[in-house]
């Protein structure tokens, strides 16, 4: 207990207070600079004017004759896509070679059907 009282707490608290505030000040400065920096440099998605007009038209006039049915997927298709994605992400699917060329099968030499053997060893 006496040891704790003997410690120069003012000095220790100064270091802590200064340290924490400096870490925060420095990182807040970095946040501000990064925010400005990102505003200046961040990629901006620009919609071409032609598309913009079309987009506005769709938002302002929702009752026009757009056929939403065109993009509709049947339940079977959705299930198949979902299953394929699931298998892909779960890495269940085998990795298959995209090459579809038929490989030549290497066979070991066997004299029983050899043409040369048959020609050289005439039946006596």
């Amino acid at each position, binding site marked *: 207990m006496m*040891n*704790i009282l003997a*410690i120069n*707490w003012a*000095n*220790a*608290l100064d*270091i*802590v207070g*200064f*340290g*924490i505030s*400096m*870490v*925060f000040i*420095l*990182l*807040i*400065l*970095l*946040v501000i*600079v*990064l*925010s400005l*920096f*990102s505003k200046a*440099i*961040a*990629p901006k998605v620009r919609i071409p004017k032609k598309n913009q007009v079309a987009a506005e038209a769709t938002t302002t006039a929702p009752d026009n004759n757009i056929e939403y049915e065109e993009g509709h997927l049947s339940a079977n298709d959705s299930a198949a896509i979902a299953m394929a994605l699931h298998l892909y992400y779960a890495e269940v699917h085998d990795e298959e070679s995209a090459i579809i060329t038929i490989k030549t099968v290497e066979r070991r030499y066997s004299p029983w059907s050899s043409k040369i053997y048959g020609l050289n060893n005439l039946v006596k």
Partner: protein
Amino acid sequence: MMKTKKYIFILIAFLFSAVSMFVSAQTSTTPLSTSGDTVQTTSITQAENAKSGTAFIEESLVNFVEGMGFANLNWQTIVMIFISCVLLYLAIVKQFEPLLLLPIAFGMLLTNLPLAGLYNPELFADGHVHWDMFANGAGLLDYLYLGVKLGIYPCLIFIGVGAMTDFGPMLANPKSLLLGAAAQFGIFATYLGAIALGFLPKEAASIGIIGGADGPTAIYLTTRLAPDLLGPIAVAAYSYMALVPVIQPPIMRALTTKKERAIKMKQLRIVSKKEKIIFPIFATAFVSLLLPPAAPLIGCLMVGNLMKESGVVERLSKTVQNELMNITTIFLGITVGATATADAFLNIKTLEILTIGIIAFSFGTSGGVLLAKFMNLFTKEKVNPLIGSAGVSAVPMAARVSQVVGQETDPGNFLLMHAMGPNVAGVIGSAVAAGLMLTMLS
């Protein structure tokens, strides 16, 4: 599993044989040493008369036995060898940070083998390198330790860390830097705790940095402020980093409500390549100009990151991520483990450091979570407080913990990328805190 059991069995057998040999050596050295006088007298007479082979053999045997490590084992070294075996068990079987814990534990084993002379702490006494003593014969680990002492290894590791880090999530959400700053609260709270326990300010700062959960930073600061405590601090830092999934979740659950844990965050914006390239250059200049002592750590972190992001030095980027990082990890691990000699490790200070270390981690976690909750009082877009805990830098383990705890409440909530922001900000934050400690205390 069978293999690891086999290895452990071999280690235990080695330990057992060491103890038994020690006992036998102790019993055998006593008669030998008493007979040593007789040997000495007889050898004199024999020298006067004629050279006798028996005396020479006896003397050689005595020297051989006395020169064996077994004869010089004491309880402290046996305990240290046992501790190193426990750490090896944790690394191999439990897989607690095995990449670092395994070399650290083996370094600990090497340094505690009597008379091996692999590491001599007197060469680095009083915080200085005694170059003149190197000429008299230094051990292998003494030479390797120079990399730690001169602050080379932590910086090399930071180059690799930088090359493996993606600052994209942080750039997409710069506010996450604040969460990284809040997690450094643990460092300063622990500093006060260590002071209260009677540690000197420099020692207290080195212990406090454990709360930053950043191994290289902890080693870097400790070698500069309190090199005598390097062994216990490194062991505590890496052990607790491995225990992040155990330490953090209860604190995160205790400090948040179910509703807060279920907060879904807005998807992060796309960060352009240009931003990712400019950031490391800018951050190095900015932080180093404000806080020069942090320049080695920040500079190395950012040069590694620039190698990755620029995409023009693919070979260098791969080298620092793999070969350089691995080689440095081996040297760093073994030499840091080597500092854990019986004299330096087996004392009450180590126990205190291990205890304060866990408190430091808890404070760091709490600081991040509480600041995220505080930010929610003012911001429109709510922040899930769970990502605040990732502000302790243990990359990427702390971010994964945020993801896992978040999915306990809502399996459809994906916090990983959001948590990576505070996570990498924590690396910057702890380097800044270390720089500040160096400025104030060295």
